[in-house]
């Protein structure tokens, strides 16, 4: 694996864009950052364990072990995400076959408390739900379409959302760390101006350093081979489950594209922006931002070097 340092792009599709007037002058400091469990300890993770310990969760990654007799294809799967706006031939479902998600109930423990339920108010006052995850003391990463609505077709809706209420570690009506409302957002040119799902990522900036309490995820840029060989974890706040509850699943990566990661992990509307992370010797390292539902695999925006550069700048 390799983690490379790049400078923040000033032009092109990864050029960062903000709804704040002075963001263009932000200067990058570091491109990578390890995870932090925050103030009150964390859920233990033994060395060599790649899947988070969630009681009741059946690990599909383990079930796919060749020694057990089932091989999940991990390369050359159809790039269904690329067909997002193409001919409407395949059926797209975000829960594939049996629903393999497991509810997380100890959401006040790291890493779960570093994942937040989002209540989004768009420019036209329509409201939505999504997911975000801390990558620093006051910065959450999420999907671009969570902070900036593009090509909705609804008059007055497109553009920066008005506000997002951030509820870390929410469990139903229980908000163990309260909530913070933000109206400061980041995304990139490739999403804002082109609506290109390859650049569908963004950030929420808080006015407080709540991340120092709840902790944050690290992130990692991997080459294709290492990323394809990875087992990834996803947890978020899907709308098809009881309101405000967190659900988890892990599986091997199905395939990768230059700017996308595909996985057969069940998701539903509301999980946009959720972390797609590797558990590496107890360190939680995001490799993608979940964003889309697809036919066989769901997909996220891959954390490439330019994405990592922008995260580093946004968390500064």
């Amino acid at each position: 694996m390799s983690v490379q340092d790049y400078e923040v792009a000033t032009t092109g599709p990864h050029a960062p864009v903000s709804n704040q007037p002075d963001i263009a002058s932000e200067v990058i400091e570091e491109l990578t950052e390890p995870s932090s469990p925050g103030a009150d300890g964390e859920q233990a993770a033994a060395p060599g364990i790649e899947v988070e310990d969630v009681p009741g969760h059946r690990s599909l990654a383990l079930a796919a072990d060749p020694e057990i007799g089932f091989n999940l294809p991990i390369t050359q799967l159809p790039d269904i995400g690329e067909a997002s706006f193409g001919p409407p031939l395949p059926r797209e479902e975000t829960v594939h076959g049996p629903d393999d998600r497991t509810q997380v109930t100890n959401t006040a423990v790291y890493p779960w408390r570093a994942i937040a339920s989002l209540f989004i108010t768009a420019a036209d006052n329509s409201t939505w739900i999504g997911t975000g995850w801390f990558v620093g003391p006051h910065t959450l990463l999420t999907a671009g379409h969570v902070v900036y609505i593009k090509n909705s077709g609804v008059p007055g809706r497109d553009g920066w959302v008005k506000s997002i209420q951030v509820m870390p570690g929410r469990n139903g009506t229980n908000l163990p760390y309260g909530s913070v409302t933000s109206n400061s957002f980041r995304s990139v040119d490739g999403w804002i101006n082109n609506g290109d799902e390859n650049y569908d990522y963004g950030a929420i900036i808080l006015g407080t350093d709540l991340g120092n309490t709840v902790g944050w995820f690290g992130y990692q840029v991997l080459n294709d081979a290492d990323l394809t060989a990875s087992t990834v974890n996803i947890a978020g706040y899907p709308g098809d489950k009881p309101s405000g509850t967190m659900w988890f699943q892990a599986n091997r990566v199905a395939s990768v594209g230059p700017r996308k990661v595909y996985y057969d992990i069940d998701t539903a509307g509301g999980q946009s922006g959720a972390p797609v992370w590797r558990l590496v010797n107890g360190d939680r390292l995001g490799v993608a931002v979940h964003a889309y539902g697809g036919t066989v695999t769901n997909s996220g925006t891959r954390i490439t070097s330019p994405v990592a550069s922008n995260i580093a700048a946004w968390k500064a």
Partner: protein
Amino acid sequence: MTTSTPLIAGVVRAGKGDPVAAARVYVVDAPVSLPDIAALTGADGTFTIGVPAAGRYTLEANAEGWTPVRETIVAEPGINHIELRFGTRNA
């Protein structure tokens, strides 16, 4: 409102037709991949979701106290109306 983008404009109701506010509405079956986000219905139970292509979409509504309900619509460019009605209360 005129648009070439297919819009699914709907209302979520329960029982005899009372609108359900803050219900979660999301697409569960579509001809193309979609952002994994869910709309919340307004005080009048309404919502509008834009989709990138014409075709057959299945939407699901979910709200506390009710068994989730699904409806399918063939969306064409312009506004496409749909109603999702909860009929069974959760235990």
